[in-house]
């Protein structure tokens, strides 16, 4: 597991480095194109021309990225959660969800369970955010809570926790900001090009004023700058999409491994894709962070090269082809079976590194069937670590109706509703605007005192 994370980190750093180079290159090109002047610099006999315009551009490009990245990093999960309109909840607000999150963080060996947020939206989706496993959060929509059963919810939460465990969240945030910065810079560049008259300002100055050789070099550099400015955003996006897709597969694998029940996540993905819902106010930058891209939901025939998530049908097919196994190796095998090109996309080293994890998990759970293991594995580990996690069999599966009620009550509690239970079996839920001191039960006519605003 740690090998996998380390490898992930290495690959992330490599990609980040590449993207940073791209960003600086774009900055340089733009700076050079806008201010092509260079200072002659005498360096021990040889005269170097220092393109200070390009260097300035590089500095600006780095600053544009750095400021945004710093803001996202220092705020940890809060900035993204606020951007998504998510609200933090406590354990008593939704014990079922908290149980699942705790179980899955133990299974993923996170240092502590992430914070839990709810998005007040009836569409089905979830995402994770945070700087590292110690500063992480998981957000699910209210719709997800009411539509998914426990196994499915467990699968989705495990997928998100896998993102946290794989250190995906920080990387995706940083890389996303970098793509955004590159796009921003090139757009500014093209606007500047449009309004300035680079290469056409011969009216008031002699073309021959600069030395001939330098002029040709400048022209070549200008062309390079232009090409780079056109290609860089595309390249950055492709890079970003490629590693985002890769991470989705890995998180799916985690979802299957932590639950030991791939079917949970598979059916959850199906339910989610069947209910695209209408999550409003999802920014393009945030879209790759959700378990199912909210902006791509609904469209089917999108180019796989430019999508942030692998097609759901394929993700489901891989999960269902795991043949009762619940390890990373099983997932890799299933991936290879479903998608011949899969082997090329999981490096051999990653496969080898996942094997010890599977073995260890299998040792602990060998005698149990996959499904009971899904329930028992986290519980067993929980009792060892002293976290009180009630057994799944002790709490019967909530009916869809009950789930919908629980979710509705959760949202109402978040919005400061007051609850009165009448002896006749009626439950009255009073909105905070209800100002009267007393309320009469519609059924038995009993007069209840309205509790004070919480």
């Amino acid at each position, binding site marked *: 597991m740690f090998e996998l994370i380390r490898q992930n980190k290495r690959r992330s750093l490599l990609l980040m480095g590449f993207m940073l180079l791209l960003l600086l290159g774009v900055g340089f090109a733009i700076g050079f194109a806008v201010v092509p002047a260079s200072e002659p610099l005498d360096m021990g006999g040889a005269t170097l021309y220092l393109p200070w315009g390009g260097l300035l551009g590089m500095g600006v490009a780095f600053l544009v990225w750095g400021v945004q990245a710093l803001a996202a990093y220092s705020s940890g999960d809060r900035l993204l959660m606020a951007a998504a309109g998510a609200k933090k909840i406590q354990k008593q607000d939704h014990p079922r969800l908290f149980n699942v999150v705790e179980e899955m963080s133990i299974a993923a060996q996170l240092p502590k369970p992430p914070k839990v947020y709810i998005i007040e939206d009836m569409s089905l989706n979830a995402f994770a955010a945070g700087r590292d496993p110690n500063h992480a959060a998981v957000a699910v929509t209210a719709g997800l809570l009411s539509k998914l059963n426990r196994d499915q919810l467990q699968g989705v939460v495990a997928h998100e926790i896998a993102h946290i465990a794989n250190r995906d969240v920080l990387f995706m945030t940083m890389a996303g900001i970098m793509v955004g910065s590159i796009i921003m810079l090139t757009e500014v560049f093209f606007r500047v090009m449009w309004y300035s008259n680079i290469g056409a300002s011969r009216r008031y100055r002699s073309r021959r004023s600069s030395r001939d050789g330098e002029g040709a070099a400048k022209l070549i550099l200008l062309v390079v700058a232009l090409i780079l400015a056109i290609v860089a955003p595309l390249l950055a996006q492709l890079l970003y999409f490629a590693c985002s897709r890769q991470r989705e597969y890995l998180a799916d694998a985690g979802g299957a491994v932590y639950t030991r029940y791939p079917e949970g996540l598979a059916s959850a993905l199906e339910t989610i894709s069947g209910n695209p819902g209408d999550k409003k106010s999802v920014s393009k930058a945030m879209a790759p962070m959700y378990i199912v891209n909210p902006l791509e939901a609904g469209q089917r025939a999108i180019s796989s090269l430019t999508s942030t998530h692998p097609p759901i049908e394929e993700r489901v097919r891989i999960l269902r082809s795991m043949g009762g196994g619940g390890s990373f190796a099983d997932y890799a095998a299933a991936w290879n079976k479903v998608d011949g090109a899969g082997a090329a996309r999981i490096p051999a080293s990653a496969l080898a590194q996942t094997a010890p994890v599977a073995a260890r998990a299998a040792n602990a759970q060998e005698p149990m069937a996959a499904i009971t293991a899904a329930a028992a594995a986290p519980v067993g580990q929980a009792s060892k670590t002293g976290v009180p996690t009630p057994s799944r069999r002790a709490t019967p599966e909530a009916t869809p109706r009950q789930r919908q009620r629980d979710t509705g009550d959760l949202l109402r509690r978040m919005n400061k509703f007051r609850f009165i239970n009448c002896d006749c079996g009626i439950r*009255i839920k009073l909105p905070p*605007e*209800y100002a009267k001191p007393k309320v009469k039960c519609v*059924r038995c006519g009993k007069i209840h005192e309205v509790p004070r605003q919480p």
Partner: protein
Amino acid sequence: MECPVCKEPMLVIEYEGIELDLCDACHGVWLDEGELELLLGDHEMTHGFLTAGNPAAAKKEESRPCPICDAVMGKAVTGGKTPVVYDYCPHEHGLWFDRGELLSILEQGSSDGAAAAVVQWLRHVFPDSSTPQTKQETLNP
């Protein structure tokens, strides 16, 4: 949520797992999208019955805003002996029934056990509600 008729804050009533919003003042009932299906369970209340009435009957009722999105709600008229005019949100947020309308719909639109249970349920929740049909029943025993 405010009552679309009298703008009072509405109470939420839950009984046996079914939930509806009730206006304390006018006893109108709001059912969230999907709540009618929950209320009816597996019972086949055909879409046909819910829209079988003559739309002309809806003309005289004034239009109301959806309590969730404020869009002007549409009117639908049920079939049956005493057609009921009720409101629906164009964005599918839910349905609005004036006092007694919901019970009347369920009593007319169904004859089988499941819906009878629902009617029982509504009678439980609103023991004082009186619909045109229940009035008739009490007049002609």
